[in-house]
């Protein structure tokens, strides 16, 4: 399954400071606006306050001269209002002053700066604004707010007399696009306009605005059922995108493939926005952590001022922002949220609605809206995979974050086993096409990657070519065998797959070296030992002997740079914690009878021992026993490469979390021979000497546990 390149869900490429660390400085040049948008967060707009050149000049001088506070070598000079273009004369004068001063002072940002504008676009085509744009063409970015279609835009973005502004803004869009190419707009949705969401996004795309940075408001305005309307609108939009194949050329942030995953450690230590790392200057020359902390943008609190143009920044007042992160401002519910990535907040709004004057209390009014967004996003990317046959970026991200989850299709009762089990079935029942289709849908819906065990005489590869196949080396029906199984013989090594699994029965222990030598050119060899419960002392000794011989092959491969990888010998070299089989956790099996199993071994051993089916889902009883922490012997063991086979555990000790003695002994022989191998590789300078495997005096970790208990 290849990966398609698509822009859907991304924002347009943003200026990155030409590779330099960037500081954003926002000038609020006026608190006046020529619109009176109903959802505007600037609650106290007025005609009184506008910035003077003297105030702006003092701020520019401070920012360009205090290199201790402002160390960044790239600066975005952001002009905002109210409506910034109401003050185009001032902006022009300030911009000229900034350019001159950067040059005079040899400031590094002279090579890396932008003038940025967020505007309602009404004055965009005026001669003064156009002259300014021509004068600074190489260093300007402009974002005109178009909120959607006419109905939606005019619901919110109105003149003080209540008249909608859509027509007056949209007439300037062609000029804006002509001057700035692939433009992006920000569309904001609140309760009233949710039913227009789908049509609004499409309308923006039809205007030629291909990038839509859409979001929903943070405020406490959401009503019962809004999440359902939101989700339905997004799903209809998803269908429209799929039907019209728009995913490569158009984007709306609601379908960002990265949203809706559990939060990792890094995200928990991060803040959603750059408050405190930016600087905003109000009309009177007071400094703020960002525009959302200015007086006139807050409903309940006074502005959070951190200094002014006459005294600079008070560092003590800025300190609170340096430690601000997701973990220390969020509830446990948010920190542990299964779909937490991409859930937005605004530090300024948090401050405004916090119970005390703190920035460390996160508002969560949009929780249900975010969850609805995630569900719709999931829906879109599933549809994308169905339409394109390609792996979606969302699946890529999921696999990176959560690991790959596999659904193994036992395609018939006559397949060659690929692991620690025997196929003793006498029947040749095959999985039906109907069940395969249902299984593939289940895999799609539940984020499993399908793996076919067997090929049904070539039919499966023909019908489902984009999947993983694990086949017997003698199976000549396939040209793309991903993993080849050699069942106690290596007769034909011509198969093109890079990964080989060799099944070794007790009587073939003596042939391990020979088999591996014959498959030496494979990138990866997995040895699967069968019927270990029948092993005796002489088998163990022979195994040890074979491993020592194979060690020599590994050393030679390190010397010639081919680096042979064998599960029982080289995996432990690179592990610092238990690897183990993820059966029942990251992988399950679907059998021809329609039932689900922890792995194929459980099916072939006892078909009644299933964990559910495609209709009722997976129900694993006592699945806490799958965790290493609940496996008392394994958690004390450092044979980290051991597969900790749950099937063998249950078969031999009757407890799924408890290995038998022979399993532990075999794993420790492998561990100890790996230790010898490691020493030899280090001596030959073929391996670094860190993480040396320690010497131990037992082959069964239970001995250590019992000894420790006695000593205690």
């Amino acid at each position: 399954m290849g990966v398609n390149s698509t822009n859907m869900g991304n924002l347009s490429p943003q200026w990155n400071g030409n590779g330099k660390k960037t500081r954003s400085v926002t000038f609020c040049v006026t608190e006046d606006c020529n619109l009176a948008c109903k959802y505007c967060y600037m609650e106290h707009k007025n005609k009184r306050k506008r910035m003077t050149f003297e105030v702006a000049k003092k701020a520019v001088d401070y920012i360009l001269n205090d290199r201790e506070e402002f160390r960044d070598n790239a600066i975005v000079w952001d002009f905002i209002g109210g409506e910034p273009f109401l003050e185009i004369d001032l902006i022009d004068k300030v911009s000229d002053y900034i350019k001159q001063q950067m040059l005079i002072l040899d400031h590094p940002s002279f090579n890396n700066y932008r003038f940025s504008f967020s505007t309602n676009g009404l004055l965009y085509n005026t001669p003064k604004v156009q002259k300014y744009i021509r004068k600074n063409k190489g260093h300007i970015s402009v974002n005109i707010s178009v909120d959607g279609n006419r109905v939606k835009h005019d619901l919110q973005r109105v003149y003080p007399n209540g008249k909608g502004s859509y027509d007056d803004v949209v007439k300037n869009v062609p000029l804006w696009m002509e001057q700035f190419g692939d433009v992006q707009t920000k569309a904001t949705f609140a309760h009233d306009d949710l039913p227009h969401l789908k049509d609004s996004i499409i309308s923006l795309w039809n205007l030629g605005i291909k990038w839509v940075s859409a979001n929903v408001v943070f405020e406490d305005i959401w009503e019962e059922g809004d999440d359902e309307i939101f989700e339905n609108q997004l799903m209809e939009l998803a269908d429209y995108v799929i039907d019209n194949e728009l995913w490569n050329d158009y984007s709306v942030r609601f379908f960002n493939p990265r949203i809706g995953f559990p939060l990792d450690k890094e995200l928990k230590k991060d803040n959603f926005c750059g408050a405190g790392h930016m600087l905003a200057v109000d009309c009177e020359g007071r400094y703020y952590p960002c525009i959302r902390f200015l007086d006139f943008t807050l409903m309940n609190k006074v502005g959070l001022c951190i200094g002014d143009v006459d005294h600079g920044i008070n560092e003590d007042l800025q300190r609170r922002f340096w430690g601000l992160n997701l973990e220390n401002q969020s509830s446990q519910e948010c920190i542990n949220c299964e779909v937490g990535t991409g859930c937005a907040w605004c530090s300024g709004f948090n401050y405004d609605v916090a119970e005390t004057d703190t920035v460390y209390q996160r508002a969560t009014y949009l929780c249900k809206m975010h969850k609805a967004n995630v569900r719709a996003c999931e829906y879109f990317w599933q549809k994308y995979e169905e339409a394109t046959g390609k792996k979606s970026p969302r699946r890529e991200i999921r696999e990176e974050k959560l690991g790959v989850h596999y659904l193994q299709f036992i395609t018939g009762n006559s397949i060659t086993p690929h692991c620690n089990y025997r196929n003793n079935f006498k029947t040749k029942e095959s999985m039906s096409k109907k069940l395969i289709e249902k299984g593939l849908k289940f895999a799609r819906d539940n984020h499993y990657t399908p793996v076919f065990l067997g090929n049904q005489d070539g039919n499966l590869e023909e019908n489902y070519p984009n999947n993983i196949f694990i086949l017997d080396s003698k199976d000549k029906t396939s040209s793309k065998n991903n993993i080849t199984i050699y069942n106690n013989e290596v007769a034909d090594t011509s198969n093109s797959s890079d990964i080989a699994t060799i099944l070794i029965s007790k009587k073939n222990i003596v042939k391990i070296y020979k088999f591996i030598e014959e498959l030496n050119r494979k990138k990866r060899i997995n040895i699967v030992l069968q019927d270990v419960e029948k092993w005796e002392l002489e088998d163990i000794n022979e195994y040890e002997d074979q491993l020592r011989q194979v060690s020599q092959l590994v050393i030679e491969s390190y010397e010639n740079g081919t680096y042979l990888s064998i599960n029982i010998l080289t995996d432990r070299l690179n592990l610092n914690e238990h690897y183990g089989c993820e059966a029942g956790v990251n992988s399950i099996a679907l059998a021809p009878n329609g039932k689900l199993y922890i792995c194929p071994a459980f099916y072939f051993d006892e078909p009644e021992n299933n964990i559910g089916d495609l209709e009722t889902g997976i129900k694993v009883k006592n699945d806490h026993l799958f965790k290493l922490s609940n496996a008392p012997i394994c958690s004390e063991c450092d044979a980290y490469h051991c597969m900790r086979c749950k099937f063998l555990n249950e078969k031999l000790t009757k407890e799924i979390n408890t290995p038998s003695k022979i399993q532990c002994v075999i794993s420790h022989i492998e561990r100890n021979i790996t230790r010898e191998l490691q020493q030899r590789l280090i001596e030959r300078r073929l391996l670094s000497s860190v993480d040396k495997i320690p010497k131990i005096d037992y082959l069964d970790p239970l001995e250590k546990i019992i000894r420790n208990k006695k000593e205690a």
Partner: protein
Amino acid sequence: MEKELVGEVLEEEKYEILRLFERKIALEEVALTLENEGLNEKERDKLRKKVEEEYTKNKENLSTWWREKSEKYSWKKVKNGVWEIDFNTNKIILKG
């Protein structure tokens, strides 16, 4: 005009010329402010001199960058042809 892909530069090398290019534009844009009313005669002359000097220096730096990189990577050249860089892909295109 024919276009041919003839090479590629490293990310940091891309940023070197990108900053020189941005500096060129910045100098051209600051030159447009020289007639501003806010400047007195002395400030104006000083600023004009700095713009001119820096513009010349930057032009030399741009030429040096192209010469050094073309030698380093042995890019194909043709008579009357010019190299261009795509800042998105770091690729060098010969136009001739």
